């Protein structure tokens, strides 16, 4: 087991193709990350996110031979997850759900420095506000914002996940930040 934990994603892909039991280590590695990613980019319940994860993993296994080692495996699996969420969007979006995920400290710091929030703002309140605002953002802005600040992906990875040119990612991110900042300010006024 320990031996497998030290292996790279690429090595695990190769081993999974040789023996499907090894696919378990790959799934375990991305299980939590993908569940929270699904929750962040959609308004689904935890149970729905698990169902989606099952579809995603089956798709990943089915397409394992299509994985191009020139691409980061995480980008590839996030891309499949993103596409699966989109294709299930109609089915799942109708039900408003509570937020089941938390913003990690480093993500909060990143966002605060980017959106230039006033120092006296209460951190817990801000954390809650950020989650609320992210839920209200347009999908295209939410996608880039989540990947950049909450999933800590760089521009190249975001470009590979969303299948968009890097320039488009940069433009979307700038716009997303501006909208996000405006909404955060609006929320602060209300509070």
């Amino acid at each position, binding site marked *: 087991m320990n031996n497998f934990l030290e292996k790279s994603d690429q090595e695990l892909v190769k081993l999974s193709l040789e023996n499907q039991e090894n696919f378990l280590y790959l799934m375990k590695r991305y299980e939590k990350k993908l569940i929270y990613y699904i929750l962040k980019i959609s308004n689904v319940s935890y149970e729905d996110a698990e169902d989606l994860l099952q579809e995603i993993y089956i798709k990943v296994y089915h397409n394992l031979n299509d994985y191009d080692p020139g691409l980061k495996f995480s980008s590839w699996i996030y891309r499949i997850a993103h596409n699966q969420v989109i294709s299930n969007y109609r089915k799942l979006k109708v039900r408003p759900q509570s937020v089941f995920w938390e913003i990690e400290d480093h993500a909060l710091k990143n966002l605060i420095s980017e959106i230039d929030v006033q120092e006296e703002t209460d951190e817990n309140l801000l954390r809650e506000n950020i989650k609320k605002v992210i839920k209200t953002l347009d999908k295209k802005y939410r996608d880039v914002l989540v990947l950049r600040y909450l999933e800590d992906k760089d521009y190249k990875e975001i470009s590979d996940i969303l299948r968009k040119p890097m320039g*488009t990612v940069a433009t979307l991110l700038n716009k997303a930040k501006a909208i996000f900042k405006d909404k955060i300010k609006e929320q602060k006024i209300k509070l």
Partner: protein
Amino acid sequence: MPEEKISEKILEQIKNRSLKPKTKWSFRLRTYFIWFLVILLLVLSSLAFGVILYMLVNNDWSFQQRINPNLPGYILDTLPIFWLLLLGFLTLLLYFEFKSTKKGYRFTLAHILLGSVIASFALGFIFYSFGVGQVIDEELNERVPIYRNFLNPRNQIWLQPEEGFLLGEITKIVDPTMVEIIDPLNNEWVVIVNEESQMMPINLDIGMKLKIIGEIVEEGLFEAEMIMPAIPNPPFNFKGIIKPKGQFNYKYFQKKNYGGCVIIGREASAQI
């Protein structure tokens, strides 16, 4: 909190449903098929550009003043709209097909469009140079009535004998001053070539297509003022590669009388 055993459950499902990864070959085939379509679309758009170039270069510019003295109006009248729309449509398809290649998403719309336009222009110029654009235009003119009658604006100009513009194929050379032709609407004409007629130094032969400017003298009788071949040679006529029908020893039209025009026919052969 996440349920502990979700990955194990999924693995069980994979086993129970006997799921297997798709073979490498199925993905390779898909990749090859997409690239085949990209190349096919590039070749088709290049062919369209080859035809556009041929039509623009051979747009009867020598007769422009006579046909429509207003240059912008003449350009609009003779613009190969069908081919331009087809080129636009193919370029759009090419864009979407290229986007669906594995790394196509990394390029912007502007990059892909610019690249495909440059590639199809370069390849299209080669097609034009070898006379491929001409062959396509001629074949469509001959075989596709919709193209001949509606999609090729140049044909419309030359289907107005009452306005002095006649297009036709030589059916008989009666003598050096009289040629019989049949126009695309199957009307038969006797064309009078007199000393005043301006003509290129061309070898006339039965089956050859001509564009004639002049006037109707009486029903079925057309007096030529200017005569030129309807099918010019491509700019680089590489022998044996492509030989369009009805070729001429093409020289630029000169607005002066040609006394040395040789007429060679099955029934007559003489010098004007």
